[in-house]
């Protein structure tokens, strides 16, 4: 299903593409008419999303566009003002506990408890996801080794660098082998080697049938990894489809992104005195 929506603010003409008549995989995320209003401002305004199972889905948008609010609603951290969400076929919030059991999260704000060590945190998370303690400990050891966090086992998370915190958050998201990953800026602050490791791991998870929904400002990463992308601007989706379907001519994702959400800002924001 390909949709390129119109954006009256940008003067974009609406483009409608007929959905292909083939049997589509079940949806990992299905969002209909999602709205979130704070006061009199709509942070998310009527978003429809369909993320097929097994997809690597990139969710993009400029700062303040509504990415984090959307992903927070998917994670259950924020309540939608209107609209419906189904995750892995189950409705939110009715089946929240079942859904949470099947998803792995890397949010923008840290879920990490500063006064635990990385090993203690991973074991804690594993046990919350119903792993028996010995299995949680075994997986913790393996994940710490994989993410090269086993150097100083007594170091508290509060003493970790930003990149280390992201790595331990990623390890925590993996410990229970989720079917769906919701990730908000997972590569932010991670060094090149760590980022490469994380990307390889995520691609491997997708190959095994998991679905990944991520937001990122690093467009090269999204361009290289994601099968499908959606772009949100001022709370509304302005694009949704595969990169090939969305770009015109030889433009890359950055060109597409700037064309859809930033062209007017670039000319408007130039300052005389600078």
């Amino acid at each position: 299903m390909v949709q390129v929506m119109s954006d009256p603010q940008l003067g974009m003409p609406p483009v409608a593409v007929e959905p292909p008549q083939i049997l589509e995989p079940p949806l990992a995320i299905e969002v209909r008419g999602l709205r979130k209003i704070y006061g009199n401002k709509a942070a998310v305004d009527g978003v429809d999303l369909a993320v097929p199972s097994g997809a690597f889905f990139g969710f993009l948008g400029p700062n303040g566009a509504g990415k984090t609010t959307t992903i927070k609603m998917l994670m259950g951290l924020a309540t939608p003002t209107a609209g419906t969400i189904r995750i892995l076929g189950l409705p939110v919030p009715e089946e929240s506990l079942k859904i949470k059991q099947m998803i792995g999260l890397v949010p923008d704000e840290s879920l990490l408890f500063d006064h635990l060590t990385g090993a203690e945190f991973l074991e804690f998370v594993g046990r919350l996801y119903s792993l028996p303690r010995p299995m949680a400990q075994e997986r913790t050891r393996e994940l710490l080794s994989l993410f090269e966090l086993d150097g100083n086992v007594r170091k508290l998370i509060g003493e970790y660098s930003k990149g280390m915190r992201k790595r331990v958050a990623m390890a925590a998201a993996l410990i229970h082998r989720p079917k769906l990953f919701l990730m908000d800026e997972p590569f932010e602050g991670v060094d090149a080697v760590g980022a490469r490791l994380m990307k390889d791991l995520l691609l491997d998870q997708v190959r095994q049938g998991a679905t990944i929904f991520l937001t990122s400002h690093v467009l090269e990463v999204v361009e290289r990894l994601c099968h499908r992308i959606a772009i949100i601007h001022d709370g509304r989706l302005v694009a949704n489809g595969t990169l090939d379907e969305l770009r015109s001519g030889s433009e890359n994702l950055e060109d597409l992104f700037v064309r859809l959400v930033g062209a007017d800002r670039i000319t408007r924001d130039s300052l005389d005195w600078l």
Partner: protein
Amino acid sequence: MNFYPRVRGGSWFGVLTQLLWYSLFLFASWGVYLLLSTAKGGVSQYLSPGLLLVFLYWQLVPILLISTGASLDLRKLVAYPIPTGDLFSIEVLLRVTAAIEMFLVLMGAGLGLARNPQLGFWAPLALIPFLFFNLYVATGMRDLIARLMARRRIREVLIFLFVMAAAAPQLLILRDRSSGAHLRGPIKQALDQANLPIWPWGAAARLADGDAVLVSLISLTLWLAGAYAFARWQFARSLNFDAQAASATIEPARPTPPGSIPLLERLYRLPSYFFADPLGALVEKEVRFLTRAPRFRMVFFMGFTFGMVIWLPILLRGGSHSPSAISSNFLTVITLYSMLLLGEVCYWNSFGFDRSAAQAYFVFPVPIRTVLIAKNIAGLFFTFIEMTLITFVCILLRMPVTPQRFLEATAVAVVLSFFLLAFGNLTSTHNPRPVDPAKSMRSGVASRTQMVTILIYPLSFLPIGLAYAARYAFESEAAFYGMLLLDAALGVIIYRIALESSVSRATLQREQMIDALAKNEGPMSGLGLG
């Protein structure tokens, strides 16, 4: 971005309590004004001991209250092109916030000196260098203590020294319980010596009096210069201080024989033997987390040391001839006092230390009810460890700890816990606020905390009071324990209702909760967070 309106519940109460508090000192200031404006024949005899008290209050009370007042967060400001001298000047002026009471008293003193017809017009000016002397010393002390408190191990030693310093006068009195007569001599001597111009308070008083002007002026100038140098030195060290490095875990992992579990690890895992996951995992996490949080360690340590220090003289003064209600229930009294101290962390704001990480409880597959129960169990766990330590210290001090007294203290603590946990769950979900677990000393007192302490504690203690009233009225232990049993039943009902209400609140208002807990301080700390 925060779209939510600021919650202002409780601020009016904070204003009211502060107004009352400062009115008391305004009244004291007026008294000082009256005394000094009408004093005849040398004001220095009153002024120098008064200034000594001002000095002691200004420098010691913030330490004893584990509160530093407002201060600049240098980590956030050091990156900007602000001259160090400007930052230092602001920091010095902020030291007024650590003892506004004394500022008021000094104002009264200054006006009194100005109105005294026997003194020259310059008399009140003598207080200005004394004021700056206090500000500089307070700045230096604050920086020094904040740095020491950030260091592992040193922090614990420092807390012990504070407690001992607070205990010293009490212990001196206890040494001769019949009278404090032997103390009067040294106290009088100290007050007499306070008038000597070699001390800053003596020099300022003499200067105001126009007595020994040259010596006093030199003395005061030297003290002021010394205090300034001390403050600048400590400020410069704080500017370059890396708190994170100081508090870092530096010990390498100790090798343990394969298959063996260290003693502390066994303690952490203790709850998991009694509770299945996820409850067991959550309680274990709370125990680990709190044990390592400097703020909690401070409160916990104060519970069984400071509690003893404060109550011991009152308890022992009752004597064996005519035991008072307090002295005959010393174990219960100290236990309840320690619960009051622990309340800040274990009951009233149980998500405070988690700060933004509290959102984890909403994304992990665990009902929020389980999370609250886990936090409550962890609170009880520490309350009973605290109580055990108090009993142990009482036995060490050869106080008559009998099984009956222990049983009574335990029963009262359990019953009271139901009420405290019930109210605590409500306040934790209705008024969550972030607390930095790494800061041993708080930088300000939130008005909501005052409200909780003043309103909810008496309400929680009321059923316990009824049990004691029943014992007194019927002169019967059965009446006491019967009433306590009724209290327990009531407590369980209230706890369950409050738990459901808290769960509902946390579920419906999770965004506001997470938002409130994720708030950070600005460049000036101590103006909002508890």
